[in-house]
């Protein structure tokens, strides 16, 4: 019996699921030979209540999403958080800086009473998550690597060292040398430093490494004449949830 795989989404842009389909024909065919995809509302009509591996995209931002998420946890043998919104809360948590009513009022004005929302949370704030596929969006190759590891019954190996390591390997000039702020020294790698390679800085979408060297980040900022406030503003974009709960 092939393992049954399901995809679910909560509050998100659904870009993670879309990128999961950025496959070559060979990759798709071998994937479909190895697993049965039984739930994937964005691209398929059939639905099933039995599945082994659930990939969950998105944060939790409404009360009604909580029982739905718990139900997925109850049914799945393995739950994988897919993407920054599910893993660390991501950009959705930016609204947590405002009272819920104020955020609703900014968007809906006098009609705000029709709508409900709660402070955004990553899914592991509510259920046990077995594995994390990080990033906004995740790297498709890493997602495939995780799927392969799960099929072989192995623990997927996801880097737990900072982006700087991969950035150096990519041959990039250090972002700090270019006078910009960067989160690379404390953020988890695995992305190949794609943002820096594309001319930008690290935004922190994969979350902090387990044991971030914050003193070293402060030293770097000081050396380049940058402020902690500025880097915290950048950090908030994806990591508000970690910052607030810390």
């Amino acid at each position, binding site marked *: 019996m092939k393992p049954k795989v399901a995809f679910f989404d909560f509050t998100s842009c659904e870009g993670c699921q879309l990128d999961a389909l950025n496959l070559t*024909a060979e990759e798709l065919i071998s994937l479909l030979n190895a697993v049965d995809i039984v739930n994937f509302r964005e*691209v398929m009509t059939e*639905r099933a209540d039995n599945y082994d591996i659930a990939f969950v995209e998105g944060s939790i931002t409404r009360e009604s999403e909580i029982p739905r998420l718990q139900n997925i946890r109850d049914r799945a043998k393995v739950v994988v958080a897919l993407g920054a919104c599910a893993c660390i809360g991501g950009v959705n948590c930016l609204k947590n800086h405002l009272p819920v009513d104020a955020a609703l009022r900014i968007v809906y004005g006098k009609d705000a009473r029709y709508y409900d929302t709660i402070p955004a949370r990553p899914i592991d704030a509510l259920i046990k998550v077995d594995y994390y596929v990080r990033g906004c969006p995740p790297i498709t190759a890493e997602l495939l690597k995780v799927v392969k590891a799960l099929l072989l019954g192995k623990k997927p190996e996801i880097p737990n060292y900072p982006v700087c390591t991969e950035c150096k390997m990519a041959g990039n000039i250090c972002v700090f040398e270019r006078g910009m702020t960067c989160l690379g020294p404390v953020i988890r790698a695995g992305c190949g430093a794609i943002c820096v390679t*594309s001319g930008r800085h690290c935004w922190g979408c994969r979350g902090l490494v387990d044991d971030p060297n914050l003193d070293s980040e402060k030293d770097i900022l000081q050396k380049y004449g940058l402020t902690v406030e500025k880097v915290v503003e950048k950090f908030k974009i994806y990591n508000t949830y970690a910052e607030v709960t810390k």
Partner: protein
Amino acid sequence: MTKLNINVHHVTRVEGHGNIVLNATDGKIEKVLWEVIESPRLFEAMLCGRYYEDVPHIASRICGICSIAHSTASIQAIEAAFGIQPSEQTLLLRKLLYNAELIESHVLHALFLVAPDFLGVGSVFPLVETHKEVVVMALRLKKLSYSLAELLAGRKTHPLSCVVGGFAKLPKIDELKAIRTRLEDALADLDVTVELFKTLSIPNFSRETEYIALKDDKEYAFISGHIASTDAGITPVAKYLEVTNEFCVPHSTAKYTKNKRDSYMVGALARFNLNHDQLLPRARRTAEELGLSAPCHKPFMITVAQVVEAVHAVEDSLRLIDQILDWGLEEEDNAVKVQAGRGIGAVEAPRGILFHDYTFDKNGILTKANCIIPTNQNHNNVQKDMEAIVPLMLDQPEDIIRHTLEMLVRAYDPCISCSAH
């Protein structure tokens, strides 16, 4: 007494969460409703207080399918606020990047989301067995779009190198030449798509409505021009609020819009109706071959208009690359001087006209944001189409009615989570 109760909870093969409700007794319709139940995402609140350079990065996350459209609208709004005029080179690269997303989005919709309805299956996955050549071709086109976007912006979903004022990194000439060859091959792949669409019997339902899209004298508009309406003529982008007239309804977390009539349509068919004479030659021939001619009031033909636009986007990309190769690429100074002010960006996302309207303080901090998304503008038109189509098919079996309503929603290619931004 014959009761008909249809409740499609979470329409599938669309982006985001929406329900279809239909209740009728003895042929009398009691309720027909398109419900948008996506979680409110509150981006306009989340953008407040952010420094300008983080704004397009966050705004891109409104949508995983049309993140390039959101980034571009966001960048253009900021440029308008700061009085920045992007260079000709930047505009060429932006248009090319834009095409990458349009091709991917239209191909995904036509071949992965819509085609299964006509081929009698629930998703693209069983087609790997029965229509392998179509799936292989669709994935090749998708991969090509990703490669083109990666070359220009580092990646397709949530692009990186496109920034306020220009590009943080320029593509390599050799890579542009290499992708040009793949774009030529894509024309053949699109021919296969066209042949497939010729064999599909697209529902003939027709309902005239108002069509709204950007219009530019120079070209089939995607990232420039004024607002054009089939009912109201031309409106400058600065007065977009006079066209969109947003309002809230309790059954939808996405806002609705209306202009001259009860509802209006945006997207590929609206663009085709307004700008068809500016399509490039091959795209124009494709429209003829697929029986699409303006004005077309048939919502199920939106997908056909998308196929036509995909051909146009590939032709246009070849033209843009030739121009870039002819001019060469130069490193440009993208330095930004912030100033207080308001700016509006308007682009044609794959699903239709998209507005980002920002106000900044003198330090470049965003103080107010308003985003109006294509699917917001289409929700009301979907509702009106449903109200018009249901009486025409009440004598049909329930399954057919349900499936037709699902196909109608799908035809609009709604980006629902985007619309509840």
